[in-house]
């Protein structure tokens, strides 16, 4: 009953938006090239699925590889900043400053530097996903309270024990918040990179469809990109659920650190 009450309002709202969209397009006779009805978009998505699928694989692999690069580098970098006071002081301000810089602005330059292959896409995805991961890793590893560290020292804990029994588990919720943000960011990166330099992928397909005036198919591409994003976010959330007790997630999703970094 309460579960239904939680699910029903957003479902009804989404359905209402779709109905309004469908009805509005029909009523005002909006041409497809401006805004296709949702039913036509879905129809195109279903009938042209082999085409979409063919362009999904390159995009998916770019996201996956770029994301893994960002995760490895971002986590390592964050750990260095969190654990070395000198390096942290040196790197962190620059990092926060560059976080404001719009990473997608590098897309055309990446073509100049790396051409049209896989490389510029990986770099843009990695670049865009890197920052939320580093920042959240730093914040997450500094979440440990001083008194807890005192307690561990008085128990005679080694550095390894302190890391695995205290810092790491305490860091996970905020760390995963960063990973989830990065997952959604990586979709943005991949689309922009494909706009600039590609002959395959959903971003490339989207560009071609728009220039052909096939807005209906373009909406289909956007829908498939959204599904990719949901899958990326969902996979990270799933791993998080396996590793972090539920009662810790509730609290940290509302924490200012998680909010500030999003």
């Amino acid at each position, binding site marked *: 009953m309460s579960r239904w009450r939680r699910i029903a309002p957003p479902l009804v709202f989404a359905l209402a938006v779709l109905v309004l969209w469908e009805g509005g397009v029909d009523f005002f006779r909006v041409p497809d090239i401006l805004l296709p009805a949702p039913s036509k978009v879905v129809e195109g998505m279903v009938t042209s699925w082999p085409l979409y699928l063919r362009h999904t694989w390159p995009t998916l692999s770019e996201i996956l590889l770029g994301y893994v690069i960002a995760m490895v580098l971002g986590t390592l970098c964050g750990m260095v900043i969190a654990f070395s006071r000198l390096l942290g002081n040196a790197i962190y301000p620059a990092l926060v400053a560059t976080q404001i810089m719009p990473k997608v602005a590098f897309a055309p330059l990446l073509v100049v530097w790396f051409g049209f292959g896989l490389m510029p896409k990986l770099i843009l995805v990695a670049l865009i996903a890197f920052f939320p991961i580093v920042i959240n890793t730093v914040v997450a590893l500094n979440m440990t309270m001083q008194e807890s560290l005192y*307690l561990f020292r008085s*128990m*005679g804990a080694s550095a390894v024990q302190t890391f695995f029994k205290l810092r790491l*588990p305490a860091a996970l919720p905020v760390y995963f918040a960063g990973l989830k943000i990065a997952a959604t960011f990586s979709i943005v990166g991949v689309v922009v990179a494909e706009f600039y330099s590609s002959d395959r992928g959903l971003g490339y397909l989207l560009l071609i469809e728009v220039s052909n005036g096939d807005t209906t198919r373009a909406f289909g591409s956007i829908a498939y990109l959204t599904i990719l994003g949901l899958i990326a976010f969902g996979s990270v959330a799933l791993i998080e659920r396996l590793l972090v007790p539920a009662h810790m997630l509730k609290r940290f999703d509302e924490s200012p650190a998680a909010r500030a970094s999003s």
Partner: protein
Amino acid sequence: MNFGSTLALDHVDLAVREHEFFTIVGPSGCGKSTLLLLAAGLLAPSAGALLIEGRPVRGAYTSAGIAFQHHNLLEWRSVLGNVLLPLEIRRIETEHYLARAKRLLSLVGLDGFEDHYPYQLSGGMRQRAAICRALVCDLPLLLLDEPFGALDALSREEHQLMLQDLWMRERKTVLLITHDVREAILLSDRIAVMSPRPGRILDTVQIDLPRPRRQDISETPAFIDYSRRIRAMLFARETGSGRS
């Protein structure tokens, strides 16, 4: 002891006896928490020395259990998991200590809550779990920094008696830090009274009241007398320099 650039403690000279319940009472900001960290070897004094059983302590002193005002329980571990943590770290998870952990939990009324998580407990229960964690390794010294400071007045009184029970059973050497004069007299064998920052020890008061003490002991003339003496010391400066 220099803390940052502020002198937190000035010429503090304390000797705590074995099996004694020793309390430091003082106004907030007098450096009494610093003193506890010094006693635990978690901070190094800028001058002077800490001796335990006649030997100087260097680095963290690992033969003391500590509980702070905040419980510092690990929220991803159950109550029992938290109490067993010191055993895990010291790699002494023997049958004997496991039994001790469970016995301690039942002594403080947490039996049946072993598998609960800290977020499912009341403030007082978390504090009790934290004290069990400090006691589980059966170490000779127990350091307590305002362990009941965040509790409401009524449960604080309950917890004080519970602590007395535990202490009479276990006979650890206890160093308690508090700003609650009543709590200090109720629980202690001796009380050191500290001045405001930079903290100095004004005097040490021996409390000769029979145990076990109950809360209504605070209405006896002897208790009121101790209370008066200690308060006079604590407030001497303000009233002395002000309205006299």
